[in-house]
């Protein structure tokens, strides 16, 4: 069509872009003064917490702002063509062929009632007018490129029939079908497991290298940005506050906000006692409540009256760096971040007491019924999902034990059995002296329930929207029999609000008036209402933004420290787990693969699965080196797990048929470190560490200053 591209112009050039949404409350300036240039083959990272305007930028590039969004001013040029003035039909030829997009939730992005083949084929059929059979071949080819096994089967399938990782590969294939010059990726791996994320990240990097595709990669995960991007833009409350090359920005962050972000993420150098996380105080301002002058002002500890709040702060180039490093802070020249430690005050390690929980041979099978005629004839209508198989471990007073593994490995089932929401099929769980694994929650005494509480991933689901916070916590206190007197209950609720550091007037608020982090604090207050001896936290911070997550994590540990509570921390995020747990249990397909102290888990000998998990963790430190191990394939169905070692279908170190046929023996590397694998310990011990952290002296920025 009439699109005249200038192949010498940058792939994308955004200048002084201002984007607004219009709501009943008035105009919401979502993005302010945004400028960005993407050269051919370049990968640009866009980081920031949710609501800072990342997706809005992507949608503006696509010229798809929804019913209430609009581009107020500024220009977006794609290879010299001004997109903001493009007529609809030319826009259509551009979308999906020159610029394509990959989304955060692959399942929602795919049409549930069309086969994947149909959805793939229509891209080249629309843009290039090729025939159905040609399109079919092309689609199959690209599916093979994104390393999906059996493209023919995938093409005939509907979205719900394949796994989340496979869905994302299909979405990527769809974006690549017409060989675009620019890929927009909006949190493409946020909804996926770490090992799947690692595979997809590598795939995207390989592809853009191969085809010279430029990328804008949106994420809130600094570690991921470090792995995939050349340059990074840090956004805060609608503005870019700092930009630069990965090396320059990650090694010498200049803006107090960027610096604060690094203090919030559990880097391998963080330690819950010696170098705890340092959350950023305060909250992101709402777009219409932004302060005068610097948006970060109210949360910045370098804030200076009269300077920071005088007028809008411009972006300034950072002199003395070869890279194009720019920052939006009036005081960047004066602030010496090297004098400012990136972590909080050191604390004494906790005393570990007697065993509070002892799990022995715990087993949980779910019965499922297959009513198809075939299964009935074969006499296989009842099958078992082995959600937990032979779990053995214990937890002591004041200790934090983490259970890690990918989704579907049985972590949550175990939590449910502990809470009495399910009963175990076999084995025993002793808590405070009683075997609780077969006592459903109905049959437990209020004290028993109160002494074993849980903090959930989605606090919203567990709060009743129509009651005030005060009555909800109060009811729990009464239920556990902690207090019965009305005034005492009220006093206790106030005390709990103090403990979780929320203002006392939250007593009369309702859940919908709370932010995600505040809701999670209420979740914690409720869990601690009955003075529990043990708290199970199921992914308590994985739905929260980095700075909020850091604050909630620190809070949880502070309360734990004070009350000497045992914490069972369930997570798939090894960085957080490494940071806060004393001991780790690694699970795969319902079985324990490895367990031991945190140091033992993070150093050889490794179980091959642990090794892969460690390699998959993105680390936001350019000086940390990692060994790359990418797992292929999917988690097998729990209905039909491998005969021998559960990991045998994906294990990169598989020794042979013995892994397929025989259960691996549990080998003790020390009295507390157990590994279930056929490979002898000596051989497992011979590998290099997966993550290598340089010592302080080796670090470049120390040498520089």
């Amino acid at each position, binding site marked *: 069509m009439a699109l005249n591209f200038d192949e010498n112009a940058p792939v994308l050039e955004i200048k002084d872009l201002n984007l607004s949404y219009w709501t009943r409350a008035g105009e919401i300036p979502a993005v302010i003064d945004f400028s960005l240039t993407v050269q051919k083959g370049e990968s640009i990272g866009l980081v920031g917490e949710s609501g800072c305007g990342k997706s809005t930028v992507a949608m503006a590039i696509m010229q798809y702002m929804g*019913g209430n969004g609009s581009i107020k001013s500024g220009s977006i040029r794609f290879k010299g063509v001004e997109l903001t003035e493009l007529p609809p039909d030319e826009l*259509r030829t551009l979308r999906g062929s020159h610029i394509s997009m990959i989304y955060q939730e692959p399942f*929602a*992005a*795919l049409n549930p009632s069309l086969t994947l083949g149909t959805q793939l084929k229509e891209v080249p059929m629309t843009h290039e007018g090729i025939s159905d059979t040609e399109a079919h071949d092309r689609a199959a080819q690209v599916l093979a490129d994104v390393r999906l096994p059996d493209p023919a089967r995938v093409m005939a399938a509907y979205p719900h029939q394949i796994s989340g990782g496979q869905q994302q590969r299909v979405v990527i294939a*769809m974006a690549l079908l017409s060989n675009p010059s620019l890929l927009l990726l909006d949190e493409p791996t946020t909804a996926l497991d770490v090992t799947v994320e690692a595979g997809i990240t590598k795939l995207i990097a390989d592809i853009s290298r191969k085809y010279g595709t430029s990328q804008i990669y949106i994420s809130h995960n600094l570690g991921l940005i470090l792995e995939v991007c050349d340059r990074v833009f840090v956004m805060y409350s609608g503005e870019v506050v700092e930009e630069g090359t990965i090396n320059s920005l990650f090694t010498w962050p200049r803006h107090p906000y960027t610096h604060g972000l690094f203090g919030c993420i559990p880097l391998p150098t963080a330690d819950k006692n010696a170098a705890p996380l340092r959350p950023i105080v305060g909250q992101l301002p709402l777009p219409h409540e932004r302060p005068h002058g610097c948006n970060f002002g109210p949360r910045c500890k370098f804030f200076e009256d009269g300077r920071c709040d005088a007028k809008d702060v411009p972006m300034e180039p950072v002199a003395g760096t070869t890279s194009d490093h720019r920052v939006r802070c009036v005081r960047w020249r004066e602030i010496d971040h090297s004098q400012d430690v990136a972590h909080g005050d050191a604390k004494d390690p906790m005393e570990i007491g007697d065993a509070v929980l002892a799990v022995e041979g715990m087993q949980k099978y779910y019965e499922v019924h297959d009513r198809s005629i075939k299964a009935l004839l074969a006499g296989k209508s009842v099958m078992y999902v082995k959600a937990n198989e032979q779990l053995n471990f214990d937890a002591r007073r004041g200790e934090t034990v983490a259970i890690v593994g990918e989704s579907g490995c049985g972590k949550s089932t175990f939590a449910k059995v502990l809470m009495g929401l399910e009963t175990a099929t076999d084995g025993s769980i002793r808590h405070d002296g009683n075997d609780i694994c077969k006592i459903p929650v109905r049959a437990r005494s209020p004290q028993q329930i109160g002494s074993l509480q849980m903090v959930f991933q989605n606090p919203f689901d567990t709060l009743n929207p129509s009651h005030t916070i005060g009555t909800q916590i109060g009811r729990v206190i009464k239920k556990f029999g902690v207090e019965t007197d009305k005034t005492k209950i009220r006093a206790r609720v106030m005390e709990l609000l103090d403990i979780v550091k929320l203002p006392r007037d939250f007593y009369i608020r309702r859940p919908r008036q709370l932010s995600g982090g505040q809701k999670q604090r209420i979740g914690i207050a409720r869990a601690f209402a009955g003075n529990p001896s043990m708290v199970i936290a199921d992914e308590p911070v994985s739905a929260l933004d980095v700075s909020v997550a850091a604050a909630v994590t620190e809070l949880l540990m502070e309360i734990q420290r004070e009350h000497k509570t045992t914490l069972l921390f369930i997570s798939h995020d090894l960085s957080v787990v490494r940071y806060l747990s004393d001991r780790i249990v690694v699970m795969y397909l319902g079985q324990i693969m490895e367990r031991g102290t945190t140091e033992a888990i993070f150093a050889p000998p490794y179980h091959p699965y642990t090794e892969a998990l460690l390699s998959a963790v993105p680390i936001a430190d350019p000086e940390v080196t990692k060994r790359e191990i990418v797992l292929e394939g999917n988690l097998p169905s729990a209905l039909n797990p491998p005969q021998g070692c559960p990991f045998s279908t994906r294990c990169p170190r598989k020794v042979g048929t013995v892994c397929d046929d025989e259960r691996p023996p549990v080998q003790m590397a020390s009295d507390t470190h157990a590994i279930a694998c056929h490979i002898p310990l000596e051989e497992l011990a011979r590998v290099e560490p997966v993550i290598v952290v340089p010592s302080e002296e080796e670090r470049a920025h120390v040498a520089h200053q």
Partner: protein
Amino acid sequence: MLIFILKRIGQMLLIMLIVSVMLFLLLEINVESVAVKVLGQYSTQEQRELWLQRNGYYDPIYERYGRWLWGFVTGDLGESVRFKKPINDFMWDRLWNTAVLGFWAMAFIIPLALVLGILSGMREGSWLDRTISVTSIITTSIPEFASAPLLAAIFVFGLGWLPGTSSMIGGFDWKQLVLPVAVLVIYDFGYVARMTRASMAEVMTTHYIRTAVLKGLPYRSVILKHALRNALIAPFTVIMLQIPWLLSGVIVVEFFFAYKGFGALLLEASLNQDILLIEAASMVAVFVVVATQTLSDIGYTYLNPRIRFT
């Protein structure tokens, strides 16, 4: 799939059995009143007892129920007191007449409602959407007993184009069908259209529609290929629910236009306390309800691949 269907049929039979028990108990537990209803207010006590004796009403209730049920299963529905004829002789004709009326009503309601619903849900908030929404709210809120006389006044008495009654004494006449069908269509299409609109509007905000647009597909194919099928899942169930509704919803129309249909029969039976006829007609109605429900569930699994059986 086969097992699913068999299961649903089993469920259907069970529901009908339960309803039949309830119906039977409700209408026939009080033997005395049965006799009154059959023999009339002015019969003597002896006459009633004699009648009850002769018709086996003093047998235990389960025996009577068994006999009635067996009669029902073998197709012997008994005799109507009101019409003095075996029920089989006229009920099915009545049902057929209503089916004809219902068919034509649906033949207009479905396409009209779907097209308007889709058009209005496609661009939520546009003037077209507002016009359609307001129209359908107004038409749905006019009751049949108001629109029927109104239409009759215009087309029968005013313009003289159409006949005012639809008893079809001289055989089938499509002209007599026009007004009853029109009343039903006016009353019902707005409801289905609004359901369709809601469903379409929801689909238009989903991420997969955004994907389709950002793939650069023409608007036509975004709507026809990506939106339509998903948007039709919800209205499909609503439409299937309109079929049993028609069975009783036609009462006013049939009565007003003297159309010899099932609804009018039901009305007559209950006004005259014609017990056996009420029982038979109710069982037919229940059958229609459960049968359409089953069909609707099966159709749903076909429209929605997520719950399709393997």
